[in-house]
């Protein structure tokens, strides 16, 4: 049975209804009313995982999109349903599939489409001083609109009652060098009863901005979606453009992209491991991790002329090569790094005072992670075996040998160990790639114009988790909609479930063990 027929059979739709959208992406057009039923069947019958949910405006109506990963079939399933302008509402799936919760509320905030039967239809992205009826991602909303501030009701936090129970508000400006967000803790003494989040302080209108930039310039905007994931997001955007244009990326570019992506993974993982040590006041390994991270970043600077790997990805290929000299430099650096990294991990897990702080701290249970559709490191630390590099291979990952480390603890230690083991796998991947760099051009030429009225999905397993971009063009071949999904957007509610039951002083280390992006979430 073909993949298409398998999917059609599982969904009970007519054969032929499921078609190939782009390579690795099946499309199904449905009625909005059918979306909840389809969601149940995809998630239960096909082990699908919702990767993104969004709206777009198509002429006189809207489309609501559900995009699922079907790892067993190695394909994405993209279901789109029309929503008419005079009945701006769609059926919610959030009550049975909590992963859709924030996605649907964001559609409400930016498109003014109502998720019917959503269990908590409050604003998620818009702050209280944004007026009703101004929907920023609709086409009739100008990107440079001056929207007056109104007096609205501050984000409704759960009330606290009972003797000795109180709320602790934190942020948006924090005490450390981190991004802004507001946390509201309900506490009874030190133990946290619950945590609520209020984000979108750094909403920069990025998706709308894409619609104004020429698509070639969009790659630089993609690099700034989340500064620590410059390669991941630029690559996801480039993938979408390449699928749109039907361009095949040359083998050497695919290999160099893997090098860039794994370097990004390594420098972030090392930095995070150091930051976890910092947050439990274990300064020696923290400093060692910082030195290791700086070593990698400087190496990147020498190899590619950019510390944080910006400007390396181009639509169609890469803008920087791994020259024979760079290859030798990298191969010389890796063994030294490997030894020091192993020492760092030993230093940490051999120390009882450290493991005391990270063991059983901030547990995200497997069930909770499944219910919330958690992705990336956080999912793999809670026993969910999922990784796009293996399940939906992109770039040169198809031909590489590597493992996907999975831990069961769901605690800070598990998230630390997933990182540690992923770094080992990255070293393995880098050596394989550097041993056999294909000799091809660095980039395929992209057409002057993208095809008109087309769309495609781009996906990448970046260091934090999967980044997906959906890019659509209008009748002139200009980019008319870019939907960005950073793994943080899916994972923030996971943090809110991992914190209760812990004490407030452990919040920083739990937060750091997830290390979610505010900018990637807020865009």
């Amino acid at each position, binding site marked *: 049975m073909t993949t298409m027929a398998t999917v059609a059979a599982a969904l009970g739709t007519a054969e032929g209804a499921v078609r190939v959208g782009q390579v690795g992406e099946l499309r199904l057009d449905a009625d909005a009313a059918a979306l909840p039923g389809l969601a149940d069947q995809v998630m239960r019958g096909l082990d699908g995982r919702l990767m993104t949910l969004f709206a777009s405006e198509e002429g006189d109506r809207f489309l609501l999109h559900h995009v699922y990963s079907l790892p067993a079939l190695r394909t994405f399933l993209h279901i789109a349903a029309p929503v008419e302008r005079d009945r701006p509402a769609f059926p919610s799936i959030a009550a049975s599939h909590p992963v859709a919760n924030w996605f649907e509320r964001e559609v409400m905030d930016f498109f003014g489409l109502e998720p019917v039967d959503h269990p908590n239809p409050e604003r998620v992205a818009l*702050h209280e001083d944004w007026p009703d009826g101004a929907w*920023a991602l609709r086409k009739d*909303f*100008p*990107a*440079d*609109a*001056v*929207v007056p501030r109104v007096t609205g009701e501050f984000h409704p936090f759960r009330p606290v009652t009972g003797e000795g129970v109180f709320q602790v508000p934190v942020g*948006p*400006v924090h*005490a*450390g*060098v*981190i*991004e*802004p967000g507001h946390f509201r803790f309900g506490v009874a003494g030190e133990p946290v009863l619950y945590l609520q989040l209020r984000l*979108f*302080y*750094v*909403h*920069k*209108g*990025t998706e*709308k*901005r894409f619609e*104004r*930039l020429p698509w070639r*310039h969009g790659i*630089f*905007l993609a690099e*700034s*979606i*989340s*500064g*620590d994931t*410059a390669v991941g997001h630029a690559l996801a955007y480039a993938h979408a453009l390449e699928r749109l244009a039907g361009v095949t990326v040359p083998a050497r570019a695919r290999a160099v992209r893997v090098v860039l992506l794994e370097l990004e993974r390594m420098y972030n993982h090392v*930095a995070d491991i150091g930051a976890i040590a910092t947050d439990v006041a274990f300064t*020696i390994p923290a*400093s060692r991790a*910082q*030195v290791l*991270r*700086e070593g990698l*970043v400087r190496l990147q*600077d*020498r190899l590619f*002329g*950019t*510390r*944080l790997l*910006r*400007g390396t990805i181009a639509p169609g290929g890469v803008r920087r090569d791994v020259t024979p000299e760079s290859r030798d430099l990298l191969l010389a650096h890796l063994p030294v790094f490997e030894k020091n990294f192993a020492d760092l991990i030993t*230093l940490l897990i051999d120390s009882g005072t450290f493991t005391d702080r990270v063991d059983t701290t901030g547990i995200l249970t497997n069930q909770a992670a499944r219910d919330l559709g958690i992705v990336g490191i956080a999912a793999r630390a809670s026993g969910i075996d999922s990784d796009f590099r293996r399940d939906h291979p992109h770039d040169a990952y198809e031909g590489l040998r590597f493992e996907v480390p999975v831990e069961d603890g769901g605690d800070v230690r598990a998230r630390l160990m997933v990182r540690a083991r992923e770094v080992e796998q990255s070293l393995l991947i880098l050596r394989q790639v550097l041993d056999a760099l294909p000799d091809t051009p660095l980039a395929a030429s992209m057409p002057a114009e993208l095809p008109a009225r087309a769309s495609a999905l781009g996906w990448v397993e970046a260091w934090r988790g999967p980044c997906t971009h959906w890019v659509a063009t209008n009748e002139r071949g200009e980019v008319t909609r870019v939907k960005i999904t950073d793994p943080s957007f899916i994972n923030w509610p996971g943090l809110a479930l991992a914190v209760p039951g812990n004490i407030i002083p452990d919040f920083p280390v739990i937060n750091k063990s997830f290390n979610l*992006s*505010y*900018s990637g979430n807020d865009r």
Partner: protein
Amino acid sequence: MFRLIAKSLKTGSLTEASPFAARASFGFPVVDFSRCTACEACARACPTGAIQTAMPEPGRKTLTVSYAACIQCRACVTECPEGAVSVSGEIDVASYSRDQLARTGVFDVARDTGHATFTHVEVVPGPGLSESAERLRERIRGRLGRSLHVRQVDAGSCNGCELEIAATTNPLYDMERFGIHLVASPRHADVLLVTGPVTRNMEIALRRTYDAAPDPRIVVAVGACGCSGGIFGEGTYAAIGGVDRVVPVDVYIPGCPPRPQAILNGLLVAMGVREARISA
């Protein structure tokens, strides 16, 4: 414990004695106006509008390169048909105003052929670098001494600048040896180190943070976005733009993101210890 101590003794100090001695592999674009034909290829290639052309009067054309918005993507370098754009290796670029980061070449345009001939570099009106340096020293005279307490405010950043600000505290750069200390509250701060673009949703928090800091509160804007809005632009529904659109800025540190050395330099400029410069 003994192993830890032994290992630390063996490692010794990793801090670099002179962080500003290094050259940037990838600095800012420098236009050799004598070879430039004002063809605008660089301006079209620039994703952030850091390179702008204008026709102030018939027969005259200007080309302005501003480091305030430059994200160091090097598109102008590769797109210039004359090879007139090179990359500087300056590692410690900073200024006291947005204008000081811009350089404008003026061209005469022949009416018949449209051929542009470079005539001179236009001097930006307003104070020059050393005059601004003197003014800043005047403001902080005797009040900051040789230590600086810094409160960092992310007012909309992508987090790239924060990564490099955090790097300035690592053992190699060791910011604290210069007397610079990151503090937890604006009430303890001499300097606000602000990254942008300032978003609509952070504007009020930034103003409140500014109001909470005691005089003379020095504001240092970090990064292309903090200096100018960068790739996110200015005046959109969500992004107000550069930090100076919301609070007065004393020192600008351009770059996307600026290197740790550049951030360190910018803070020393804010202290009056070093003087801002654009190029050697």
